[in-house]
């Protein structure tokens, strides 16, 4: 007798909602064991990570921070999810994020020190355009030559990182920065500053953009013919062809949109929370967003929740570090575990486990 997976006719609604919960509980147990091995009180550590940011003494500060940390993740992941649904794999969002930040910041700095209302909107457009253009490289290569977009978009991340270093040390370097690398700080340039809309709320324009993206993507996927084409292409590429889907347009649309959104995320980050272009400006949002997209099951609302969950583990993890002296590496492992469990248990949504008599798998 052995266990065998059997595909469900319909994804299980019960497990759709249950898997994240089970995964979090499994992570708490495994993570607790890890913390115990490191000589920390597991209960206290878990409570610090999951409870403190939301309901602890200083939650009034951490809750807005969840938005700041989660917004770029959600914004990028929403864009990626469109392509992922259609089987178009953009895994170079990190590069598009960098280029969006460079073009957005570049336009803003070109106006410095002029103050005008139109500067910030222009930066937003430049950021989106930069990300879009960077994503168009794998898109055009795919449609024109059939080149694999996974690999081209990944390679372009490294190219973008080198460009970032070049810009931070060269063209965009702050002339008043005593020769240190890094651009001027947008927090001190009102016309180019992506400030909080309500001070202390964490709501900057990037958060607004992320929420709009969630809503638009929901409408697109459920109410619009293009969304139908995306879903159809992912589920049954042949049927999609017969239904009149133009694959070239779809690739250009999906990669372009995800690139533009990643570029926007970079632009909002550089002009707001980060403040300046620097050599280490990118901290992996583009890669984490891929995980967020899958954790959210490529569903807009799921992505929103997954983005906030990731943000929670980041912020809770930081608190655990400084309050309990947990090493950063332990937090990293803890996040890895959470992803492992979510990915593993997710199988139960689409499959059921059957006991069978001897049969080879």
């Amino acid at each position, binding site marked *: 007798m052995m266990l065998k*997976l059997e*595909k469900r006719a319909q994804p299980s609604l019960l497990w759709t909602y249950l898997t994240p919960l089970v995964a979090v509980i499994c992570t708490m147990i495994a993570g607790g064991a890890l913390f115990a091995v*490191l000589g920390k009180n597991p209960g206290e550590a878990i409570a610090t990570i999951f409870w403190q940011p939301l309901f602890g003494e200083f939650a009034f500060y951490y809750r807005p921070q969840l938005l700041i940390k989660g917004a770029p993740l959600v914004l990028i992941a929403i864009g990626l999810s469109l392509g992922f649904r259609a089987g178009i*794999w953009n*895994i170079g969002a990190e590069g598009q994020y960098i280029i969006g930040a460079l073009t957005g910041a570049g336009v803003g700095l070109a106006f410095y020190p002029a103050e005008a209302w139109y500067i910030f909107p222009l930066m937003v457009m430049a950021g989106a355009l930069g990300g879009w253009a960077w994503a168009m*490289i794998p898109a055009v*290569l795919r449609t024109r*030559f*059939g*080149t*694999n977009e*996974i*690999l*081209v978009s*990944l*390679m*372009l991340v*490294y*190219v973008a990182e*080198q*460009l970032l*270093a*070049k810009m931070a040390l060269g063209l965009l370097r702050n002339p008043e920065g005593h020769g240190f690398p890094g651009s001027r700080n947008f927090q001190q340039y009102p016309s180019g500053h992506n400030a909080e809309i309500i001070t202390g709320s964490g709501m900057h324009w990037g958060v607004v953009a992320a929420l709009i993206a969630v809503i638009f993507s929901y409408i697109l996927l459920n109410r619009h013919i293009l969304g139908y084409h995306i879903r159809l292409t992912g589920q049954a590429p042949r049927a999609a062809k017969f239904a009149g889907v133009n694959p070239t347009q779809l690739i250009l649309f999906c990669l372009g949109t995800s690139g533009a959104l990643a570029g926007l995320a970079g632009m909002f980050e550089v002009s707001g929370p980060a403040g300046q272009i620097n050599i280490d400006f990118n901290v992996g949002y583009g*890669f984490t967003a*891929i*995980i967020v997209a*899958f*954790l959210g099951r490529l569903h807009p609302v799921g992505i929103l929740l997954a983005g906030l969950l990731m943000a929670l583990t980041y912020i809770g993890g930081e608190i655990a570090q400084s309050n309990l002296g947990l*090493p*950063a*590496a*332990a*937090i*990293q*492992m*803890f*996040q*890895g*575990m959470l*992803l*492992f469990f979510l*990915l*593993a*248990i*997710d*199988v139960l949504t*689409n*499959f059921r486990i059957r006991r069978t008599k001897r049969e*080879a*798998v």
Partner: protein
Amino acid sequence: MDLSSISPTLLLASLMVAATPILLAALGELVVERSGVLNLGVEGMMITGAICGFAVAVETGSPVLGFAAAAVGGAALSLLFALLTQVALANHVASGLALTLFGLGLSALLGQGYVGIKPPPTDKLDIPLLGDMPFLGPVVFSHDLMVYVGLALVVAVWWMLNHSRAGLVLRAVGENHDAAHALGFKVVRVRIMAIMFGGACAGLGGAYISLIRVPQWTEGMTAGAGWIALALVVFASWKAGRVLLGAYLFGGITVLQLNLQAAGVDIPVEYLSMSPYVITILVLVIMSADRSRAPASLGRTFHASS
């Protein structure tokens, strides 16, 4: 500027050393991808191998045992990925990224007691006669054992893929897993074995950095070598011989860049550093026209629905 100060002999010799870690990791990933699996966790497996190898070599005093432990460590970590993607049918890209995150954290925890320690030295092979030959001696015949292990592995992987039944099965699984399954091949088992082979190779590559090339342990010391190995597989268009060529090219550009700087040549470092990736993209484009493409089932999950 003084280009004459660059010695081609020494340049080629250090190029071979610089290329070895990415060569080892890329060969492993090549086999993984030929079986239709895309494992983006190479960086995580390399760094885990780096600390496993380092710790065991320090504790036992034997670099050989260290390398063995590195292979085991890398393979053990890759088993997690195998469970996720082959048993739980999770997405390859997400699982691979999670593996890198996990591996970086794990290695840092394991390595806490090993900062600032020198590992036991690995001897260079002093091959009599051959090692004394002009030019070829220092370039080809005076390295440590792992350089030759890497070269031997190129030949072994090439032979296995093209001239053995195991290679045939592996490629069949990678090209069309449903057809391979219908023919009675054990798709999941083949892929798990390929993934573990990939993990072991990545582990060896990581240990080469921590035991020979650097040699020391520090957190995050692989510094992106795993991602370069991924690029290398693509650059090589999934062929073992071209992995070797690519590893020398990638390693060579770094070494050459540093040498040119030392010789006082005014070069734009950033543009040179991005060139391997741009070249890889160009190779990809040329290859797509030439039809020798990626394994058809690359990155797709397989479930035997019968």
